């Protein structure tokens, strides 16, 4: 299947205008970048709606858009578990119970919260892991972008890599975190508007939702599943064999709904940083809640077209096929690209391609702006050059360091992108490792926020223990049919999971519970070093409750939270 497509002048014009705006925003913010806190923390001045859209846009990177559309074709509406149960409860929890401590503690990063709550070594461990992880993630995303540009538009791999890196560097260097956040808002709108025509046209082509259901039935039954498996969410999760994901309701609930999603949404600094940049405690709490509203509807934008693609693939007259990899398997990640090609004429096509480029850039810029903050505050300021006491000179110094870290981050990302192009498996390997870091971190931060007895030694050991158990579990189990050791089983083949996803869920569950057990156990036997006074603002029971009584009921965070949960519940019931 030929993937490439030719763009008309209007498509290029849209793309170029978009880049002018992206860089223009950075340029306009340049004169405000006078201190490290303006550059690295956006001066804590973002209105809730801006921070909220940036919050969700950082997560709406291209790997997410491409992956989720592919999952739509592979698993159907089951993919929405990553949204309605796998994101919304965690986002509401972050907003209601964790943001007051992250924001109220005046910590500038998640590692710094760990330092304030626990001790230096816990911060150091997390900061270093996070810095390495984000920069590699940024490289992987750059690599995916360059490959895509090469295959789809016929652009030179090296040129696309350097050009996209240069644009991201341009606007993050000029305007720092503010620039990244403002551009994420712009990217959010272009991604939504750029992909809407595909939703509209694919639904029109297949005769709407009910038309699509009818045409899906024979395709899905031929695969050995019930006719409505692709258009329902919980109905066939009684047994892992009845649904294409191979998971049961309880592992979705515990693995995805609890451990993985809370680990990702509540502890990932990349995401939390957006809420920390908000202008007030209320705005910081509302950030994830406002982000949750579009998040709930994103499945209709990217998963539903993926399901439509499955119908198209199996309808001879449509001449729709996915490109194949070396093993002759369809590359599901390219579903969205092939849909763009199928339906969009010159004009909106440019918009669609720009939307994809935008989603790549928001991923990269997010990583870079989180990296430079952690590097400057948690590594450089803590271990290399501490504050001198001269506040004005310090702010200037750290501003320069933050800017240099931006350049350094981009250069290392480019190197990582080339590494990924040399060893395809490195990508899978790194992603597996990353997923092992978040789950223990959630246990440690959660215990720290809600149990004042938790000690620094216990937290540090808990993090390491959780990570070790995750590695061991991964080494002893493997998904059926795995052909490389990267997928697991590199110690011994003790247990086989039906699919990789089930293995991932259980790795996270084991990591999180081990970390929690070790942390609780050691906290009981180690001495509590920090006094209650020092822990004020960091631990739930030692912090004065936020008083929302003065706020009109419809402006309270709790009202918004109930509203968000209610919509998620309605969507779940509608697509049960």
């Amino acid at each position: 299947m030929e993937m490439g497509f030719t763009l008309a002048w209007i498509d290029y014009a849209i793309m170029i205008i978009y880049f002018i705006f992206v860089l223009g925003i950075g340029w306009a913010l340049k004169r405000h970048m006078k201190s490290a806190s303006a550059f690295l923390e956006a001066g804590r001045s973002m209105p809730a709606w801006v921070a909220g859209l940036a919050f969700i846009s950082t997560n709406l990177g291209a790997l997410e858009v491409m992956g989720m559309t592919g999952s739509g074709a592979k698993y159907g509406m089951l993919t929405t578990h990553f949204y309605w149960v796998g994101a919304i409860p965690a986002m509401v929890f972050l907003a209601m119970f964790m943001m007051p401590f992250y924001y109220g503690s005046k910590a500038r990063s998640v590692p710094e919260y760990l330092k304030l709550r626990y001790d230096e070594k816990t911060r150091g461990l997390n900061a270093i892991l996070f810095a390495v992880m984000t920069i590699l993630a940024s490289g992987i995303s750059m690599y995916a972008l360059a490959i895509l540009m090469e295959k789809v538009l016929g652009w030179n791999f090296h040129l696309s890599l350097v050009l996209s890196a240069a644009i991201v560097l341009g606007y993050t260097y000029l305007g720092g975190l503010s620039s990244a956040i403002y551009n994420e808002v712009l990217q959010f709108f272009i991604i939504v508007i750029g992909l809407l025509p595909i939703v509209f046209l694919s639904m029109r082509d297949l005769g709407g939702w009910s038309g699509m259901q009818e045409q899906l039935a024979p395709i899905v039954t031929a695969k050995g599943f019930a006719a409505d498996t692709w258009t329902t969410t919980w109905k066939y999760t009684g047994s892992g064999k009845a649904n294409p994901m191979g998971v049961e309701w309880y592992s979705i609930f515990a693995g995805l709904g609890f451990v993985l999603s809370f680990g990702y949404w509540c502890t990932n600094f990349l995401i939390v940083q957006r809420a920390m940049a908000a202008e007030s405690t209320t705005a910081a709490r509302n950030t994830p809640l406002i982000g949750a509203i579009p998040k709930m509807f994103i499945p209709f934008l990217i998963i539903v077209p993926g399901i439509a693609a499955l119908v198209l693939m199996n309808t001879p007259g449509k001449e729709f096929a996915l490109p194949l990899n070396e093993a002759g398997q369809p590359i599901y990640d390219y579903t969205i690209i092939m849909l763009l090609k199928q339906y969009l004429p010159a004009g909106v096509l440019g918009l669609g391609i720009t939307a994809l480029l935008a989603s790549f850039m928001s991923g990269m810029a997010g990583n870079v702006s989180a990296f430079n903050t952690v590097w400057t505050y948690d590594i450089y300021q803590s271990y290399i050059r501490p504050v001198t006491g001269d506040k004005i000179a310090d702010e200037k110094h750290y501003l320069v360091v933050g800017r240099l870290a931006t350049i350094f981050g981009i250069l290392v990302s480019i190197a990582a992108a080339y590494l990924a192009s040399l060893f395809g498996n490195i990508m899978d390997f790194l992603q597996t490792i990353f997923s092992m870091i978040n789950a223990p971190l959630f246990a440690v931060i959660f215990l720290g926020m809600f149990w004042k007895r938790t000690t620094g030694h216990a937290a540090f050991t808990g993090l390491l223990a959780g990570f070790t158990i995750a590695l061991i579990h991964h080494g002893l189990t493997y998904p059926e049919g795995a052909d490389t050791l990267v997928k697991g089983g590199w110690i011994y083949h003790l247990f086989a999971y039906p699919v990789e996803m089930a293995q991932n869920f259980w790795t996270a569950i084991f990591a999180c519970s081990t970390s929690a057990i070790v942390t609780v156990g050691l906290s009981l036997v180690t001495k509590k070093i920090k006094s209650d006074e020092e822990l004020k603002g960091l631990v739930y029971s030692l912090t004065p409750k936020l008083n929302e009584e003065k706020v009109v009921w419809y402006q309270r965070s709790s009202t918004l939270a109930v509203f968000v949960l209610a919509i998620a519940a309605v969507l779940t019931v509608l697509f049960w």
Partner: protein
Amino acid sequence: MGVDIKFPIGLMFSIFGLMLTLYGLFTSGDEVLYSRSLGVNINLWCGLGMLVFGVIMLAFAWKAKKKKEA
């Protein structure tokens, strides 16, 4: 931060909206071009939609500016 993001969003989508609306008008009736989009002049509709969105954003930006000056 002294910059209202509503303004660039509004401006960019107004420009895109205008471009696609005009392109849609000039190419209307081009059956080859619109065979992909099932005969729908998707450029025209998408363009008009973006134009409306862009202008609304600009109006909000303008209102916010007035309020700030007052």
